[in-house]
C-alpha cells in the first residue's frame, strides 16, 4: 500500500483537492497567501450563529466521556485533561462550521504512570473521541512495543516500523514503554531508525495519525531528553497517578460487578486486608493487580462450589455470583508466602506479572 507523500494530504475523492499538510513557513509566502485570501474574520459577521448544541449532539462525544467516567475509577485529573482536549476540538469544529478554518492541531500525547493506572484504556477512549470529533478517519488503536517496531538486523527496522504505521493510519498508535525504542548508550541500536521515522510521521502526517507514547514517568522524561525534537512534537503530557487503597477497592467492586460477581461483606473486608498487604509487596500493578486478585478469587470460589456440588449441595444463583471471604483469604499473600523473586531493577521495579497473587 502506498503511503501518503509528505507535503500533500490524502485524496478526498473526485473534485476535492488534497489538503496541504505542510504549510509554507516563509514569512513572505505567508503574507502572499493572506493577501490572496479573503479574511474570514472580516467576511464572517460577528453575530454569525453557531449551532453548538446540534454539533455537540451530533458528535456524541459526551457518550464516550460518560463511558470513561463510568469505566474508570478516580483519575479525576486525567479525565479533566481529556475533557479539556475534547472541548478544544469541539470548539475547533464549531469554528470550522462557520468557516473559521485553522490548521490541524498537534494531538500527539504522552501518558506517564505506573503499570495498571489506565493508560491503555484511556488511549482507546481517546481514539473514539478523536473519531467522533472528526480528527481521525478511523479511530482504532494499534498498541505496540519496541519489538513490533525495531528489527534485529540491518534493513529490518524501517519496513517493520512502516508496516505498523500503515496499520495505525487513521487512528491512534499507542507505543507502550516507548523509551525502550531507543537505547542512547548503544550507537548501533536500530531503534534510532524507528525514532527518525516516528518524528517524520508525527510532523508530516498529523491529520492521519495520533501517536501516544506511554511508560514510567522517569524513563519517559529521560527518553524525551535523549531524543531532541520529540517532546516538542507532543502537545499533551498526561500523568496517571497511582490509585489509593479506597480507589483500588472501588475498582475491585466495579470489576466484580462487570463480571456479574459480588463480594460479600466479609469478602470486602478480607479484600481490604489483602490490599493492605499486597500494596507493601513488590510488583504491584494497580488495576491490573486487582484484576489478577479477583481472577484468583473467582478460581477459589469455583473450586469451593465444585467441591460442594460434588457432595450434593444445591447451588443457587446467589452461590454462583458471591465471592466469600474464604475465597480471598486463601491467597498466599495472607500466608506470608507471596512469591518473591530477586528484587527487580530498573523498569520492572513495580511492574511485572503477578501470577501468584
Amino acid at each position, binding site marked *: *500500500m502506498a503511503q501518503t507523500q509528505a507535503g500533500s494530504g490524502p485524496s478526498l*475523492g473526485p473534485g476535492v483537492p488534497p489538503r496541504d499538510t505542510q504549510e509554507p513557513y516563509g514569512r513572505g509566502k505567508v503574507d502572499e497567501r493572506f493577501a490572496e485570501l479573503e479574511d474570514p474574520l472580516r467576511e464572517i459577521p460577528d453575530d454569525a450563529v453557531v449551532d453548538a448544541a446540534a*454539533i455537540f449532539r451530533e458528535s456524541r462525544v459526551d457518550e464516550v466521556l460518560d463511558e470513561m467516567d463510568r469505566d474508570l475509577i478516580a483519575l479525576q485529573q486525567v479525565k479533566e485533561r481529556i475533557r479539556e482536549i475534547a472541548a478544544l476540538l469541539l470548539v475547533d469544529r464549531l469554528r*470550522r462550521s462557520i468557516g473559521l478554518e485553522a490548521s490541524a492541531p498537534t494531538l500527539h500525547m504522552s501518558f506517564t504512570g505506573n503499570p495498571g493506572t489506565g493508560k491503555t484504556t484511556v488511549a482507546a477512549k481517546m481514539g473514539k473521541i478523536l473519531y467522533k470529533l472528526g480528527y481521525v478517519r478511523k479511530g482504532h488503536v494499534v498498541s505496540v512495543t519496541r519489538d513490533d517496531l525495531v528489527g534485529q538486523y540491518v534493513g529490518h527496522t524501517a519496513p517493520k516500523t512502516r508496516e505498523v504505521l500503515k496499520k495505525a493510519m487513521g487512528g491512534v498508535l499507542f507505543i507502550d514503554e516507548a523509551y525502550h525504542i531507543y537505547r542512547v548508550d548503544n550507537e548501533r541500536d536500530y531503534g534510532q531508525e524507528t525514532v527518525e521515522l516516528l518524528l517524520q510521521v508525527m510532523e508530516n502526517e498529523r491529520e492521519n495519525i495520533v501517536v501516544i507514547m506511554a511508560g514510567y514517568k522517569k524513563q519517559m522524561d529521560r527518553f524525551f531528553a535523549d531524543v531532541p525534537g520529540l517532546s516538542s512534537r507532543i502537545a499533551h503530557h498526561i500523568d496517571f497517578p497511582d490509585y489509593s487503597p479506597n480507589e483500588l477497592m472501588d475498582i475491585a467492586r466495579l470489576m466484580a460487578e462487570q463480571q456479574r460477581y459480588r463480594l460479600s461483606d466479609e469478602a470486602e473486608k478480607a479484600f481490604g486486608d489483602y490490599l493492605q498487604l499486597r500494596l507493601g509487596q513488590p510488583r504491584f500493578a494497580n488495576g491490573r493487580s486487582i484484576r489478577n486478585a479477583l481472577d484468583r478469587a473467582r478460581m477459589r470460589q469455583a473450586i469451593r462450589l465444585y467441591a460442594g456440588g460434588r457432595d450434593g449441595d444445591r447451588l443457587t444463583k446467589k452461590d454462583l455470583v458471591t465471592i466469600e471471604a474464604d475465597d480471598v483469604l486463601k491467597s498466599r499473600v495472607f500466608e506470608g508466602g507471596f512469591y518473591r523473586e530477586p528484587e527487580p531493577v530498573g523498569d520492572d521495579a513495580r511492574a511485572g506479572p503477578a501470577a501468584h497473587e
Partner: protein
Amino acid sequence: MLALGRPRMSDSVPAERVVLGRRDDTTMVGFQWTGAEPEGLYELYEAESLGAVWEGDELVTYNLGHLAHRFGHDIDGYMEDVD
C-alpha cells in the same frame, strides 16, 4: 465447472449497498471511514481502485465481499491472474 474471476451476483439477489465512508467538510480530516471497510484499508484511491464508487458524499460498494477479497490479495502483494 468452477467460475473463476470476478464474482457475479445472481439477478434475483439484490446487491447490498454498503457505505464505506463519508465526506464531511465540517471535520478536520474531511472524510471518515464508517468501519464497514476491510481492516487495513485506508487510502481512498485504493478503495476506488478496488471498485468503490462515490454517490454524493458517500463512498459505497455494492459488493463488499469482492472488494475485501481483492484488498486481501493486494495487501499480500499478490496480483490476480486475469488471463
